[in-house]
């Protein structure tokens, strides 16, 4: 499916463009606080079609995430804007393709290597997965150990979320959040977690799948945006591990996409462009997106 993209500087153009019917994706420039609040107050469009170009410093973003119209963000602060708009359009095309049941992670990359897939049937496999990814990146990618460890930390956080935070009971209540994260647990069928990784010489992406579709996306997004706004967390026992883990992963260069089907599956896709220089890596283009229910 080819994605037709329209960049809108004035949100009031949106209704007339929507009525044309043949456009798939709208990038709306909401770079000021006023634009953002105005858009949120007046938005009527399906969130799947509209993606907002924002500066990460917008302080009103976390509060506005309650709005169903704010689910996908292209962060202007990072990277070259023309390149990012093209790359982002490709990503959203993949995610929005209605004929695809699962997010094809290999489509994110230009000339991907084979997709590696591992199914975790025990929580102890997490360390093994991290070691394998480390070995792969050190062997194949010309990047610093610091960047490798940052990628591994992001993967660690998301695997832990899938193993311990995703499982819910029949009433939708989380079952395992209180247990210590070093508790070994067997992962039977529904609790099994999939890890997919792909690399093309320039970028690395991974996808972690759980079979609950229970993630509280708004809560995570709020944490992530706080993390991107130079917010300093006060670490204590009450703070959600999942949120701060993702916040630091995002701040260090990751793009994140949550694709969720409630009660069925959540796919968390993380994408990094690999760079020799850490400063370039940390300042790379990134996006945050939510698809699904």
């Amino acid at each position, binding site marked *: 499916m080819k994605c037709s993209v329209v960049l809108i500087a004035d949100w009031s153009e949106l209704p007339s463009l929507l009525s044309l019917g043949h456009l798939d994706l709208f990038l709306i420039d909401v770079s000021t606080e006023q634009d953002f609040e105005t858009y949120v107050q007046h938005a009527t469009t399906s969130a799947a079609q509209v993606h907002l170009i924002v500066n990460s410093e917008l302080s009103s973003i976390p509060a506005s995430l309650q709005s169903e119209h704010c689910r996908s963000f292209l962060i202007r602060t990072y990277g070259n804007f023309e390149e990012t708009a093209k790359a982002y359009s490709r990503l959203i095309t993949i995610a929005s393709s209605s004929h695809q049941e699962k997010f094809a992670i290999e489509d994110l990359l230009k000339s991907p290597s084979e997709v590696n897939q591992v199914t975790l049937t025990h929580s102890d496999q997490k360390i093994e997965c991290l070691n394998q990814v480390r070995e792969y990146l050190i062997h194949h990618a010309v990047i610093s150990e610091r960047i490798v460890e940052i990628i591994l*930390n992001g993967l660690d956080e998301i695997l832990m979320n899938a193993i311990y935070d995703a499982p819910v009971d029949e009433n939708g209540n989380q079952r395992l959040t209180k247990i210590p*994260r070093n508790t070994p647990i067997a992962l039977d069928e529904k609790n099994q977690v999939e890890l997919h990784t792909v690399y093309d010489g320039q970028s690395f992406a991974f996808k972690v799948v759980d079979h609950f579709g229970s993630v509280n996306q708004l809560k995570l997004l709020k944490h992530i945006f706080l993390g991107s706004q130079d917010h300093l967390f006060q670490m204590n026992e009450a703070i959600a591990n999942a949120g701060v883990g993702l916040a630091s992963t995002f701040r260090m260069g990751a793009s994140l996409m949550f694709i969720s089907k409630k009660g069925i599956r959540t796919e968390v896709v993380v994408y990094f462009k690999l760079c020799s220089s850490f400063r370039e890596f940390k300042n790379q283009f990134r996006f945050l997106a939510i698809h699904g229910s």
Partner: protein
Amino acid sequence: MEAVKRDTPQGACVYLSGAIDETASFDQMIGHVSSVLQVNCKGVSRINSIGVKSWVRYFSNLRKNGVKLKFFECSSAVIQQLEFFQNFIESEEVESLGVPLFCSSCRKNEEKYFTVKDLKAASFQVPVVKCSCGGNLVFDDTKEYFQALMG
């Protein structure tokens, strides 16, 4: 995580290395500490959110019990936590840290260690270091890297 503890004339010194994650048990690995603890963090490769919680819990407790803490050769994995967490380390406890450097000629990465005293004296302008290829190794992170230490 690994922790190797040694006694020195200045007090107990512990060398931390590896990933600080949900398997790290500071109480078990470091044991009893009296009045001073020096912590060498050169070998710390990464810290996940559970590791941060364990770290904050352990070292906050030591401070409450009157233990004086000093952190030496803090790797970038340790320093970058200061960009996120107010209560990770008290800035005056950091004695020295690794500063990431990059050579654009040969694309090499290195981490060189500087004292906070020397960095403050230079207003946190990291000196250019000669690379083995003949190029220049320059500071390879953003200004936020030093933010918590500047106060």
